[in-house]
């Protein structure tokens, strides 16, 4: 009923190929986009900088990892390190006085270069072995960053991000940083929506299903595995810079440890592997479920006079990630995006269910 297909006749190939063939979908996307653009006017500062900004940034990162894990089917347990490389490269360049636009791209290229070395491992192995190799690289990159005074400025040092401008706008107000993150997220989302329809995206899908078979069909696994790592790491590096400039504002090595990798991994598992919509849902759940749960438990404890130990509340986020990942893998391996797709399929013909098929 809502997602109405009746009367939809494609008379040109362009119509059929468009991203959102249903008018309702287009309306929905535009509404959400309009809300996000108007958000600084509608929401107060806490919501904007405390919830929407991290949501946009983490979603961008999750989209980048999803390209590699969801589309190309290569496991990567060290995405936090990739983002760290980008963040450090970007921040150092900004501190040297390089404009942010160039520093972002350079951070991305730096990440892509080192991240493709991770990918070289994928040429030789896959599955569990690749998971272990990327895990090992996470530890090695952490070590190099934190033990190299030229990069981190000492073991326990933090690097301050100086005042920067993006396209002539100084990123000092909450509005400016929010729009900056929104812009980056929008560009990455647009890229991800379209990549599926290119030969690159289809090659990645072939690679995911079976790499030998893809090779036999003439898809160069060597080339596309490296390209998948390159593109995904590039996005990771750019987002790393954005994270440092717009959200953290001071980078230290411990922000890019295994915890970040696991957090982003949990986001795409919960959201849905190989889906563009998924990371948006997954990020929201993973970022905000612990906060909501904590507040809920706090208020429950307060009303019933229970004394909840502080350690329990401190470890609640980990417990929530773990349970969410396990639960989704067991009961809905395709994540929240699949739940939404089910709902949408149902609503396509609601209330005339017999019309399905």
């Amino acid at each position, binding site marked *: 009923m809502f997602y109405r297909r009746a009367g939809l006749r494609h008379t040109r190939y362009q119509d059929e190929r468009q991203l959102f063939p249903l008018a309702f979908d287009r309306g929905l996307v535009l509404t959400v986009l309009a809300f996000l653009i108007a958000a600084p006017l509608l929401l107060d500062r806490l919501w904007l900088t405390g919830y929407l900004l991290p949501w946009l940034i983490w979603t961008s990162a999750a989209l980048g990892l999803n390209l590699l894990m969801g589309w190309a089917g290569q496991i990567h347990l060290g995405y936090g390190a990739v983002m760290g490389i980008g963040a450090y490269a970007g921040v150092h360049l900004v501190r040297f006085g390089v404009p942010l636009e160039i520093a972002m791209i350079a951070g991305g290229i730096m990440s892509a270069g080192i991240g493709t070395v991770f990918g070289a491992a994928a040429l030789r192995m896959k599955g569990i072995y690749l998971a272990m190799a990327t895990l090992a690289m996470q530890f090695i990159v952490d*070590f190099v960053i934190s033990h190299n005074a030229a990069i981190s400025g000492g073991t326990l040092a933090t690097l301050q991000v100086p005042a920067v401008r993006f396209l002539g706008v100084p990123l000092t107000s909450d509005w400016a940083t929010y729009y900056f993150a929104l812009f980056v997220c929008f560009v990455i989302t647009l890229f991800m929506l379209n990549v599926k329809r290119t030969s690159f995206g289809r090659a990645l899908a072939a690679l995911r299903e079976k790499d030998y078979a893809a090779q036999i069909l003439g898809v160069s696994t060597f080339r596309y595995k490296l390209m998948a790592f390159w593109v995904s790491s590039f996005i990771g590096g750019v987002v790393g810079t954005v994270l440092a400039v717009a959200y953290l504002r001071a980078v230290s090595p411990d922000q890019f440890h295994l915890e970040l990798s696991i957090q982003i*991994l949990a986001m795409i598992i919960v959201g849905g592997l190989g889906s563009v919509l998924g990371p948006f849902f997954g990020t929201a759940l993973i970022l905000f479920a612990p906060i909501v749960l904590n507040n809920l438990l706090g208020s429950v404890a307060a009303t019933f006079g229970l004394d909840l130990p502080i350690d329990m509340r401190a*470890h609640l986020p980990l417990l929530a*990630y*773990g349970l969410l990942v396990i639960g989704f893998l*067991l009961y809905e391996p395709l994540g929240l995006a699949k739940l939404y797709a089910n709902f949408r399929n149902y609503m396509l013909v609601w209330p005339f269910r017999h019309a399905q098929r």
Partner: protein
Amino acid sequence: MDWMLIAELAVNGVFVGLMYALVSLGMVLIYKTSGIANLAQGAIAMTGGYVAWVLLAGLGAPVWLAIPGALVGMFAFGMLIERVALRRMIGQPVIMTIMLTLGIEIMLRGLLPGVFGASVKRLDIGIPQAPLFVADLLINRATLIGGGISLVLIVASLIFFNSRFGVVMRAVADDQTASWSVGIRVERAIAVAWGLGAVAATAAGILWGSTQGVDWSLSLLLIKALAIAILGGLDSIGGVLIAGVIVGVAESLATGVVDPLVGGGTRDIVAAVIILATLLFKPHGLFGREHIERV
């Protein structure tokens, strides 16, 4: 360079390595039978440490009762994980099972410190802490005893694989469908492998807990265990023994010899470097079986 110091580091490294090897023993058992790399092994070791601590300090059980109690309880826990979570994932892509074990790891790491408190728990099982002098070498008595126990357990599992049930498990490891068709209960063999894996992890958790205390950092044993399992070959128990010694000695020497040169912290990186080097040069480890893939 002081040769005495290097000898001392090497000898202590051997025993520490054997204690690491105990964690990866469980990983190898599980990989051998079901082809799943269990990334929750470190967290299961931590859980075992907590269970032993609860029995000893919380319920006041004597040591001779608490340790077997913890081992039996964790055997059941390992089987429970397999039954509830991993069995449902049969036929799913490898990426899913890896993520599932990682999810279990994260959950346990949040659950146990959350319930029992994050402070370090002292686990006293009566291993004397006083150092031992052999000639001029100073040997840590706790790691000596721990390494000895690990060695016994690893050798015991080698012998176990020649027993009747061990042969069944080897058959399952070799070909699940074929063993099914000759009447082997494959599910039970895999469940027992998980149980034994959890027991090995628990033994390691108790030994490590008694030397460094029980807290979440026991789950960091995962990375060392991974290094050993990969270096030895993921499906070779004998490999665990030798790789454990190599990793232990390498780590110990890195701490003593390389640390002063680069300013500390190499201990944590040795395992990662070993994983990477093994995967790049000999992906199936020293004793692992080459895996041939058919399209």
